């Protein structure tokens, strides 16, 4: 199966481990990811904060590129997915806006290609059972809190992903690999997103609460699917024993026995290796 791939601005920088592990996992599973050529920034939160038209035309250009490439578009970053899916939704449902966007971007929207989050693609197109069958190492002993954040699940009519109040796709993928996904209360609570620099105090507060709840639920680590959540969770934890924060693709890569996985751990701000060693998951 092959897909167009939209990495988004963070996958080659602050979300480096996410990009590396995604590519490695997909390659191992035989799923082809073809990066969209000359893709542009989706606008993230800044575009929609300041200009509604720009907030649509930026992601619409990527939709135009994906349409030309003729494959479904897979997006790993939750924010990029949300903005692109939103543009797709407007193009499908608002004829006046659609004409305006088409004229600015310079394309005719056909709606043929689907915009899909990475997590859904692995779950729906590959499936937990098949994934488990490919696993070389059990991740038994690892207790995690699966954390989705906001933009993957809300607003539900745009995101169209999983159950917006109680999502389970990440746990469904990870459980057959031996991971114990603990039930917890804050799986879709906001990490503070783009306030990380302008009001880091707010983010510290939100992250502290999230981590407390994860610990209460018996988790040794948090697993996430959004690069901004991951960086907030790593940068804004206080205290002597912070909880490691994985991308779900890293744990899948570990279970699949992908050798490059050992390069990912050192990229984290909170070193997950002591935890992984204590559970005999790495040497």
């Amino acid at each position: 199966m092959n897909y167009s791939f939209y990495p988004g601005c963070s996958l080659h920088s602050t979300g480096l481990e996410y990009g590396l592990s995604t590519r490695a996992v997909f390659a191992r599973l035989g799923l082809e990811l073809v990066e969209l050529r000359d893709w542009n920034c989706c606008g993230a939160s800044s575009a929609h904060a300041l200009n509604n038209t720009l907030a649509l035309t930026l992601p619409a250009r990527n939709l135009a590129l994906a349409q030309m490439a003729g494959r479904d578009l897979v997006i790993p970053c939750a924010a990029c997915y949300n903005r692109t899916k939103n543009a797709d939704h407007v193009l499908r449902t608002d004829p006046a806006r659609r004409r305006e966007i088409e004229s600015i971007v310079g394309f005719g929207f056909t709606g043929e290609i689907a915009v899909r989050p990475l997590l859904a693609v692995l779950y729906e197109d590959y499936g937990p059972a098949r994934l488990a069958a490919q696993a070389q190492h059990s991740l038994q002993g690892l207790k995690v809190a699966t954390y989705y954040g906001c933009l993957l699940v809300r607003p539900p009519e745009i995101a169209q992903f999983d159950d917006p109040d109680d999502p389970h796709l990440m746990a469904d993928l990870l459980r057959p690999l031996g991971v114990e996904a603990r039930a917890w209360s804050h799986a879709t609570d906001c990490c503070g997103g783009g306030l990380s620099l302008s009001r880091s105090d707010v983010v510290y507060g939100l992250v502290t609460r999230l981590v407390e709840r994860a610990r209460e639920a018996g988790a040794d680590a948090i697993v996430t699917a959004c690069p901004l959540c991951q960086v907030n969770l790593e940068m804004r934890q206080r205290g002597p024993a912070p909880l490691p924060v994985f991308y779900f693709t890293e744990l899948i890569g570990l279970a699949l026995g992908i050798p490059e996985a050992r390069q990912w751990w050192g990229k984290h701000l909170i070193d997950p290796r002591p935890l992984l060693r204590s559970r005999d998951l790495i040497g």
Partner: protein
Amino acid sequence: MITNLAVEVDNLSGQRLELCYHCHQCTAGCPVVGAMDYGPDQLLRLIALDERDTVLPARDIWLCAGCYTCATHCPNEIDLAAVMDALRQIAVANGYAAGERDALLFHRLFLSVVRRLGRSHEATLLGLFKLLARAPLLNDLGAGAGLFARGKVPLLPEWSGRASAEVKRLFEQSAKK
């Protein structure tokens, strides 16, 4: 010409604020309400009362993290995140100083980098933000150094091919008329 903030916000956001009956779900679910002065549902009330000089300078509209918790739970299906976006845009268009100066600065810097390069570039963004923001310069020095040491803040922007020129054009043509 008499303008009414509620009408302006309705039109720009595409939301029908008059449907709000103040059940407070939005305020109850808002993750950042603790840092706000009014909270989402009070803002709606203030908008209905055309209190533009209270609403538009408020820090609340810049603190909104766009998490859509409010929009998802509103029984009248008012997308308050869209309302917050509209308020930000109206505030900027009417020359109100941002209630959270650094938040607006961040958005402006982010977009100016994207406009130039077609993609974001953290190193430029972080550098400019640190110089221009009110937040202390030395905050996050350790974390920043940590990210940089791990190769997560590339100094050179990525080459984005045609994106750079085409994105400039998108900015120009998407500008408010």
